[in-house]
Structures are given as structure tokens and as C-alpha cells.
């Protein structure tokens, strides 16, 4: 409040003058541009001398609206300031009354300021939107208008004390004026827009060839009236079916309908409307055949060379800078290392898992129900699944135990004592593709994998006898302990499961 004695021009007046100047400059610049363009194309359709160009008209309208919007804000703010800052005349009333009036005024001022802000926000967006109709391109017009809109309030306004009645009236009048301007501008704008749209020269566009399409209906002398009639009926029927299906779906959904009802009604719903579209296309649109020339698929040679030249110009810049090259290489390297580090946490070296022996010497054979298996638990011809004691139900240790008559067993010499009492134990994981070898045919003594029908002869150490498996099922050596329980006399004879590159033989 230091310079509050200085003489200054009326704030509102200053804004008005500035706005008007800007408005004129914007309109003039657009006019200049337009005249330059029309001057350049002498052969083009000339306009009347006094006739205003489209752009000028649009620019004028747009600028006027935006500036009007800006004025409203300034006006309301000015008004608010009047209320906020005008001091009570000393001695005109009792101190208490004066204070009360002062508070009231301040309150009114605050509310007005709030209203001003809100109406400015609304007014600004409205004004911009309306102006946009006229200012189709972001020309200098729009930029200029936006400048008015964003123009900061002059510093005087904040300290406007003792503003004249005329200024207050002016500010208030601006509000009313703006409303009138907005309404009329919108009406005028619509008219102008329609006129302009009607006057746009469509014939200047290149032909798309649609007019030259062959009408196959006419060529084949199709009865169009009949088609129209039937097409309408069928399309309507299909749509009705679709509608009914939709309703049926909703009803059955909310009444907890069965899956068949839900799917069926959904199918009718979608199928009905789908058929309606196809019927519509088939019956109610003209059957036209378009023939068009194909453009070259490849670019012309000059275009290719042009692109290559541009690329090389840019590439030279990179080639000149060795540091940049080295940095790119280093960057790629770092990215690679980062990726490899991340991938590392996805897995671990296979040797840790693949080469673990799953059966230990002395472990008892347990059934699925964790009951120890005795040497006579099975009759010859029987089969059960067994696991090592302590890991019943585990995937990798699953083992199939079969019993055959002792004299049939025909194991290799080094396995002669692996099958006490004709009990033979083999890994249950197929050596072919890792399925569970779950089927046993006691008559032929064959274990069979249900996935790919590999068969393994239990009498000869589960050697493959048919199907795609090439390796025998690993055998588990057994012995009988003092209680008659079967125990593992060591690990499997081979690694169980499907083969891999580093699998030891």
C-alpha cells in the first residue's frame, strides 16, 4: 500500500482498451493471412472485395467471445474488491454500526470473490469451447485470445479504494453484457457454422470411386422391392429373437438358472442380433462390386533413397562421436547383465534337484496309508504303490511293488537277491515322459504307462517291451528285516524319471 496516493487510470478502462487493441490486431492478422493466400492462388475462386473471409469472421467471433469472458472475470473481481477494501467513512455512524457494516461488507466481498472465481472458471471453459467452434486451428488468434483470458489483474485492482460509482457500474454492467454477448454469440455462431458448412466446396475432394461401383443387383435385375420387404421382415424377426434371448438370459441369471439355460439364451441373444446384422447387410444394402487399382506395395526408388540419405545424415552424427558409441555398447552390456541377474532368480542349476537319490538304505516300504509292507503283504499277481518311510505321498519316490512267483523272476545276475519272496519294486515314474506307470497286467507281468502305452516286463528288471520308452524302470533292491518288513537295500538302480542330457548311464 505504498504507492496508494499515486494517480492511476481506471483499472477497468485500462483492461477494456487493452482488450480492444488485441482484438483488432488479431482480426487484422487473420485478414492479412487470408489476403496473402488468395493473392497467391490467383486462379482460385475470387471472393467479393467487401466480403469478409471465413477465417476473419471466425476469428472475430472467437476473439470477441474470449475477450468477453475475460472481461466478466475482471468485472466481478473489481466489484468484489470494492466491497472488500472500501473503508467505512469515519464518523458517519456509530462505531458499533460501522464495524457491523464493515463485517457485512467484507463477507459480501468474500462471497462475491468466490462467485467471481467460480463464474470465471465456468465462463472461461464455456467461452473457450464456443470460441473453438470458430477457431478451428490454433492460430495466432487463439493464442492472442488466450493471452487476454490469462491476463493477470493489474496491481491496482488489489488496492482499489474509493472506486468511483461509474467504475462499479461498469463492472456490474460487464456481467450483464457478457451474458447477452454469450447468448447472442452462440446463436450467431450456430448460424455462421451452418452457413460455412453449406458453403464448403465438396466438389474439390478427389473421387473415391464409390460412384463407379457396379451395382450387381441392377445387373442381375433383382426384384428390389421384394428384397426390401423380406429383408425388413427377417431382420426384424432376428432382432426380436435376439431381444427375447437377452431377456431370457437376464431372467435365468437372476433366478439362478442352469448353465444350459444361460448359455442357450446368451447364444440366442448374440445370434439373433448377429443374424440381424448379416441379414441387413445381405438384404437391405445394395450389392455393389468395387474395382480399384492397387497402389505399388513398395516405395518409389527416389523415396527409398531419400529415406536412406536422411538416415545416413543422422548416423554420421553418431559415428563421429566415439564416446556415444562406447556408451551405447556399455549400456547394452549392462542391460544384458541386469537381465541375466534377474533370470538367475527364476531357477537353480538342475544338478541340485535331478541327481538326488530318493531312497536310502534301510528305509521301510510304506503303503499310501503309511503302513509298513511285509514280505507276504502281496499275493503273487498283486500290485501296490509304496513310498519310503517318512515321505509317503511324495512325487519322486513313488514306487510300484509287484509280487510274482519266485521261480519266474529272471533278473540279471547282479540283481539276484533284489527280489526277496518274488517282491519286485520299480520306480513308478515312466522313463519316457514322466507319467505314473499305473497299470499292471498280472498275466503277462507287464507294467503299462497310461499316457503313451509303454510296457515294461517286471520279470526281467522292467525292461521296455513295447511302446515308446527306451529305458528300463529303475529297480529298487529289497531285503527283509527281522520283523518281516520289506526295506530298501539302497537307492534306485538308475535315476528315476524321464531322461536328460547329462543323465548318467
Amino acid at each position, binding site marked *: 500500500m505504498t504507492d496508494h496516493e499515486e494517480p492511476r487510470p481506471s483499472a477497468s478502462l485500462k483492461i477494456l482498451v487493452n482488450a480492444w487493441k488485441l482484438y483488432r490486431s488479431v482480426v487484422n492478422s487473420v485478414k492479412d493471412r487470408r489476403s496473402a493466400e488468395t493473392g497467391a492462388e490467383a486462379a482460385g475462386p475470387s471472393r467479393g472485395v467487401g466480403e469478409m473471409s471465413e477465417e476473419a469472421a471466425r476469428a472475430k467471433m472467437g476473439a470477441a467471445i474470449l475477450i468477453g469472458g475475460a472481461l466478466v472475470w475482471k468485472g466481478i473481481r473489481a466489484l468484489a474488491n470494492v466491497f472488500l477494501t472500501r473503508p467505512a467513512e469515519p464518523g458517519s455512524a456509530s462505531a458499533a454500526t460501522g464495524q457491523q457494516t464493515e463485517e457485512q461488507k467484507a463477507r459480501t466481498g468474500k462471497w462475491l470473490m468466490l462467485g467471481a472465481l467460480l463464474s470465471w472458471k465456468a465462463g472461461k471453459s464455456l467461452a473457450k469451447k464456443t470460441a473453438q467452434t470458430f477457431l478451428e486451428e490454433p492460430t495466432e488468434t487463439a493464442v492472442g485470445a488466450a493471452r487476454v483470458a490469462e491476463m493477470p489483474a493489474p496491481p491496482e485492482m488489489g488496492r482499489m479504494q474509493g472506486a468511483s460509482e461509474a467504475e462499479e457500474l461498469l463492472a456490474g454492467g460487464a456481467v450483464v453484457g457478457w451474458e447477452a454477448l454469450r447468448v447472442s454469440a452462440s446463436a450467431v455462431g450456430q448460424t455462421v457454422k451452418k452457413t460455412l458448412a453449406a458453403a464448403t466446396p465438396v466438389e474439390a*475432394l*478427389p*473421387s*473415391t*470411386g*464409390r*460412384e463407379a*461401383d457396379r451395382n450387381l443387383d441392377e445387373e442381375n435385375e433383382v426384384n428390389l422391392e421384394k428384397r426390401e420387404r423380406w429383408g425388413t421382415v427377417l431382420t426384424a424377426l432376428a432382432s426380436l429373437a435376439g431381444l427375447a434371448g437377452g431377456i431370457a438370459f437376464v431372467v435365468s441369471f437372476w433366478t439362478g438358472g442352469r*448353465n*444350459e*439355460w*444361460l*448359455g*442357450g439364451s*446368451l*447364444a*440366442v*441373444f*448374440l*445370434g439373433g442380433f*448377429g443374424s440381424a*446384422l*448379416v441379414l*441387413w*447387410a*445381405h438384404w437391405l*444394402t445394395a*450389392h*455393389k*462390386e*468395387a*474395382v480399384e*487399382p*492397387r*497402389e505399388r*506395395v513398395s516405395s518409389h526408388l527416389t523415396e527409398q533413397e531419400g529415406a536412406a540419405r536422411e538416415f545416413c545424415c543422422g548416423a554420421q552424427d553418431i559415428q563421429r562421436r566415439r564416446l556415444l558409441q562406447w556408451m551405447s555398447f556399455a549400456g547394452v552390456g549392462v542391460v544384458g547383465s541386469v537381465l541375466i541377474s534377474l533370470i538367475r532368480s*527364476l*531357477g537353480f542349476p*538342475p544338478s541340485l534337484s*535331478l541327481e538326488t537319490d530318493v531312497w536310502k538304505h534301510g528305509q521301510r516300504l510304506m503303503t499310501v496309508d503309511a503302513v509298513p509292507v511285509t514280505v507276504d503283504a502281496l499275493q503273487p499277481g498283486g500290485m501296490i504303490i509304496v513310498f519310503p518311510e517318512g515321505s509317503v*505321498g511324495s*512325487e519322486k519316490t513313488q514306487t510300484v511293488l509287484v509280487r510274482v512267483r519266485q521261480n519266474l523272476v529272471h533278473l540279471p545276475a547282479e540283481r539276484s537277491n533284489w527280489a526277496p519272496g518274488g517282491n519286485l519294486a520299480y520306480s513308478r515314474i515312466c522313463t*519316457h*515322459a*514322466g*507319467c*505314473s506307470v499305473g*497299470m499292471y497286467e498280472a498275466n503277462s507281468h507287464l507294467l503299462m504307462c497310461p499316457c503313451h*502305452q509303454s510296457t515294461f516286463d517286471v520279470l526281467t528288471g522292467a525292461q521296455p517291451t513295447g*511302446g*515308446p*520308452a*527306451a*529305458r528300463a524302470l529303475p529297480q529298487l533292491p529289497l531285503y527283509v528285516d527281522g520283523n518281516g518288513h520289506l526295506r530298501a537295500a539302497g537307492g534306485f538302480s538308475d535315476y528315476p*524319471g*524321464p*531322461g*536328460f*542330457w*547329462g543323465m548318467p548311464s
Partner: protein
Amino acid sequence: MIDGLARWLDSRVRMAKFVRKALNHVFPDHWSFMLGEIALYSFVILVITGTYMAMFFHGSSEKVIYHGTYRPLDGVQVSAAYQSVLHLSFDVPAGLLIRQMHHWAADIFIGAILAHLARIFFTAAYRRPRELNWLVGLTLLVLALANGYFGYSICGDLLSGAGLRIGYAIMLSIPLIGPWITFLALGGTVPVAATVPRLYALHIFLVPALIALLIGVHLAIIWRQLHTNYPGPRRTDKTIVGARLWPSYTLKSLGLFLLVFAVVAALGGLVQIDPVWIYGPYNPVAILPGAQPDWYLGWVEGAMRLFPGVNLRLGHWLVPEVFFPGFLFPFLVFVGLYAWPFLEKLFSFDFRTHHVLRLPRQQPWITAFGCAVAVFMLVLLVAGGDDVVAVADNANVVQIRTILRILVFVAPAVTGAAVYLLCRLVNRKHPVPVEEMSAEEILAGEETTVQPQ
């Protein structure tokens, strides 16, 4: 309102010119050109139904005891994934419908891609300039097959558990790198808890994103190159004949989308698929006789069943028997497919640009070869279910396998020869008229040129 919105958009991204051109885009009309569209629309359905399912599915192998609506499995130990599938199927209204629609849409997706591939192959649409799109399309097929496998492998049922173990065995069998990449990809010796979350992430995120991206590339290339035409009047390598995008093609295509959706809904509602509660939860001890992978992997399964039990010992290194039919064979099939447009160029010595298709009978050797390969794959597909065939015929699976091992070579040879002779015969009786008119002659006097951009 549309007008206003269009103007609003246009004043931001300037698109009137493009839209005008797009609305006049010419699409040839033929039923066989819809196969790719069916695949596209099935993918849309997969994304819709899949997103819905992802809100219920729990991609975890954690062991839980089931106490849900489905009484026969009450108190059984299942995986959290399996439990959430049962919850979706039995407790969520229309959940079973959405799940079955998803599975059916996946089958239709892959079926449509294969049919589309066959159409491209038998009409030689892969010739210049469309080799690029052939490669993109094949990659889409690979991704679709992989994602189909991932999808049914994460449910935690007995079938998917068996499928995972076989997939694990195949991956493990790759020489030198097999164990390493298997452990990196699956997180250990399958079944291991790490696998399902990984496959789930791939299934719902990475692979669908790649598929969506490549579909965009696929369509953009078609848009740039324009569609092919079957041979016929006014169809030459310099013209395109068909209907315009707007309105007839748009209506038909939109209708096709709804019809595909309707078929999927009907199948999802009326035809049971992948009833995991009947298979039961995965359990290392249980077995599932008569198990097959989904049909689109049946040819690999068949190859694995028919291939003799032979492995390769190289010093103390092993190339397991499952490597040859399980990995090498599909690998070579896809190498052959990827190389085909370029191989065909070498044989035919035809490096020109083609926009008019060849009818299958115009290329007897290629058609015969394609049919032979198709029959080969069909025999393998049957072999993939040889145990089911054996049960149905009350025959011995060993006998069936022997017959199929012969048939897998004889049937393609016979088919190829028969198709070749048939093509020659039909060509002699009804020669294909060749359009000799030039584009200039056809278009003479008609103002149909589109101004270059």
C-alpha cells in the same frame, strides 16, 4: 451427436482424410476369407471371458482341503488353483458358462487359425509380397498353441498335471540346454509349486499381449498390401475387386463377430468341456487312463506314441527317446512352415508379386503335398488317442499302434497321389480362365482412381 464427436476428434488428430479412405477400403468377399476373422473374434472373446475368470482364479499350487459346493470332493486335498476353478464353476452365477466359453473359444481360436493357414497354403496367398504376413501368422499360431497349453495346465486337475509332466519331460530332453532351460522356465522338477504361477503369468499377460500386438501387425500389413482376390473376371494383379468397408462389409463383419460369440455361448452352455471335477485334483499317485491333451497338441502326442523306443547315447551324454517326437518333430514342422514361402520360390522360380490367388487345382504338386501333410497330422492325431480307439473298437492297443505306424506313412502317400491325379483331371475338364485384361483396360473411362496421399 456423432457428427459433433467426430468433429471434436478431428480437430485434435486430423483424421477425416484417413477415415474417408478407410470407409472406402475394398474387401474381397469370399467365405474362406472369414476364417481369419473368426480367429480374431475368438481372441476378443478369449480376452473378455479370460479377464472375467482372472478375477476368480487363484494361480497357486498351495495345498488346501476342499470344502465347497461340489460334495464328492469334500475333504479332499486339492491345489488352491483347483479350488478356485471349482468355486467359479459351481458357486459363481454363470461362472461355469464363462469358463466353458473360454475353453471353447480357445479351441475355435486355434481351429480357425489352422483353417486360415490351410486356406493361405492351398491358395498360395503366401507369395510375394505376403511372405512377411505368413511369418507373423505362423508366430501367432505358435503363441496360440503355447497359450492353450498354459491355460489348461494351470487348473490343478489330474489331466493338467499329467500334461505338465509330459511337457516337462519334453523340455528336459533337449540336448545340452534342456535341464537348464527347464529349471529356469518351470522352477524345478515338475510338479513344483513355482510352475503354476509362472504359467499363469505367461498365460494371462505376456502371451496375450504378444498375440494382440502381432494381430495388430498382421492387420496393418493386410491394410497396406490390400487383400488377395480369387481368380475371376476383372481380378488381376493390378486390381482389387470386392465390397467396400462401409457399410456392407462392416455390417457383415460385426454380424460375424456376434455369431461367433453366439456359437461359443451355445457350446459353453450346452456342451461340457474340461470338467476338472470329474478328472479330480492332481495327485501323484492317481492315474487317468485315456488321457489326451487338447486336440491341437494331439499330433505331438500321437508322434510320441508312435515313435519307436530309441534313444541316443553320445559317450556319457544322452538324447532321450522323447526328444525326437516331442521336440525335434514339431520343431522341424514349424521350421518347414516358416521356410515354406521361400522354399516354394526356389522350386517354382517365381519371384514376382502376386495378388490373384491360385486355385488348389492350379498347383497340383503343392496341393498334393499339403493334403499329404494334413493326412499325416490326422493319423498322428488319431494315434494320440489310440487307447481310446482301442477301447472303442475293443481291440488291442498294440495292434492299433502297429496299424497306425504303417498308416502314418501309407495314408499320406496315397492321399497325395490321389489328390494330384484329381487336380490334373479337374484341370483338364474345366480349365481355369486366366484374366488377361490389364488394369488400364478395365478402368478405362471410369473415374475410380484414388489420389495418392
